């Protein structure tokens, strides 16, 4: 490990620690949420330093983008100031975390040295398979994509099902809005009154969606894929909802369409698995999709599966934002 990389990561770690201290000390929660966004962004930089570019991409889009917007929306719905933390909570919490941290540091002595070439992770035969054999079996340069969508496709299917379930649960919890409750007043998002904001965001929308499509379909060759593209798509719709108001955004992406999208992505993923079973392979064995030319089958399979991931993630994130933004503020 070269010394420049060490220096960069030390500086980033220093920023992270200061940010974490800031989060626990700030009682104004808007500030704390912004610091949490900063934390995500710096973590994304660290992921780049650690050679995980796909992860950095996702963290930047999720942590600094969608997550921050959602938290701010929830703050607007609730109270944005925290009560003073009583002293009787501070000491047990501090002692508990210091003890846990000490135990973890003690345990970390058994870990292999950071960046070692001969660590068990690197020596395991699967490493060779993922990095070298994948080029012949699958032919996708970005090994993260081939591991995600093909070698460990079953695992990713499970993750997508979790996202689907969490999204459905949020919709169930929040979709009921009492229409004639006198305590509630329609929230007015007046950002569309800012002409500059309106014009600039109108210019940007096509590029955001074009970029999302690029990330979606370029994931085989560079950092990208369904998860990142889904989040970028969703952030485009979130921007639309923020600037033009949630009612107009609902007109662009109606409720029924979101419901169809959320489930159809997962169905597409599972459908590819079932098709490969019907064609004589095992579940999600893309070789079966094109028996004469297995690499072709892998390409088609990965493309469809990533598309399913992208559709469901975009649908879930957009629906979650809409349903939060649809609630009225308690006056």
């Amino acid at each position: 490990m070269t010394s420049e990389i060490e220096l960069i990561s030390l500086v980033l770690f220093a920023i992270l620690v200061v940010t974490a201290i800031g989060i626990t000390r700030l009682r104004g929660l808007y500030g704390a949420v912004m610091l949490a966004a900063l934390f995500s962004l710096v973590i994304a930089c660290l992921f780049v330093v650690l050679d995980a570019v796909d992860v950095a991409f996702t963290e930047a889009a999720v942590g600094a983008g969608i997550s921050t917007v959602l938290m701010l929306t929830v703050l607007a719905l609730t109270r944005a100031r925290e009560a003073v933390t009583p002293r009787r909570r501070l000491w047990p919490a501090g002692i508990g975390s210091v003890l846990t941290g000490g135990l973890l540091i003690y345990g970390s002595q058994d870990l292999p040295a950071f960046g070692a070439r001969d660590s068990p992770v690197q020596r395991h035969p699967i490493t060779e398979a993922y990095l070298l054999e994948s080029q012949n079996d699958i032919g996708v340069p970005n090994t993260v994509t081939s591991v995600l969508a093909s070698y460990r496709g079953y695992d990713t299917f499970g993750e997508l099902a979790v996202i689907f379930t969490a999204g459905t649960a949020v919709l169930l919890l929040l979709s009921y809005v009492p229409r004639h409750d006198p305590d509630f007043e329609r929230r007015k998002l007046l950002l569309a009154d800012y002409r500059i904001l309106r014009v600039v965001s109108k210019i940007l929308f096509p590029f955001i969606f074009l970029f999302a499509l690029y990330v979606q379909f370029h994931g085989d060759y560079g950092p990208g894929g369904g998860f990142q593209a889904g989040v970028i798509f969703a952030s485009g719709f979130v921007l639309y909802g923020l600037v033009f108001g949630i009612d107009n955004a609902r007109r662009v992406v109606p409720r029924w369409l979101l419901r169809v999208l959320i489930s159809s992505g997962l169905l597409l993923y599972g459908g590819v698995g079932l098709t490969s079973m019907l064609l004589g392979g095992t579940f999600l064995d893309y070789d079966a999709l094109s028996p004469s030319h297995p690499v072709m089958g892998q390409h088609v399979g990965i493309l469809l599966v990533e598309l399913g991931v992208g559709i469901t993630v975009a649908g879930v994130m957009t629906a979650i934002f809409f349903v939060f933004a649809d609630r009225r503020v308690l006056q």
Partner: protein
Amino acid sequence: MTAPSLVGSAGGVLVLVGALVTLSGGVGLLRMPDFYSRVHAAGLTDTAGVGLIALGLILRAPDWGVVVRLLFILLFLLLTSPTATHALAQAARRDGVRVWTDGEPRR
């Protein structure tokens, strides 16, 4: 000194100047007396600082693909950062944040 290394060092100088501008923006963010002047300092880091760094990186780019990507980044930064600064200032004005005048305490 050969031509490519001259271009490279020019890029290095640009990155350095950009970093200094960003630093001055950070200092301004801490030292300025009220919201509007702080937005001015933050806007400096967004446009001049990042713009200079991106230009410097373009001069040091290894191939054309990177240059095109950096140009796109630069274009979108020039489009979005002033808009963000504008939206911030507008929101503060609508919220009734008053402009600081000489002699008042810092806010």
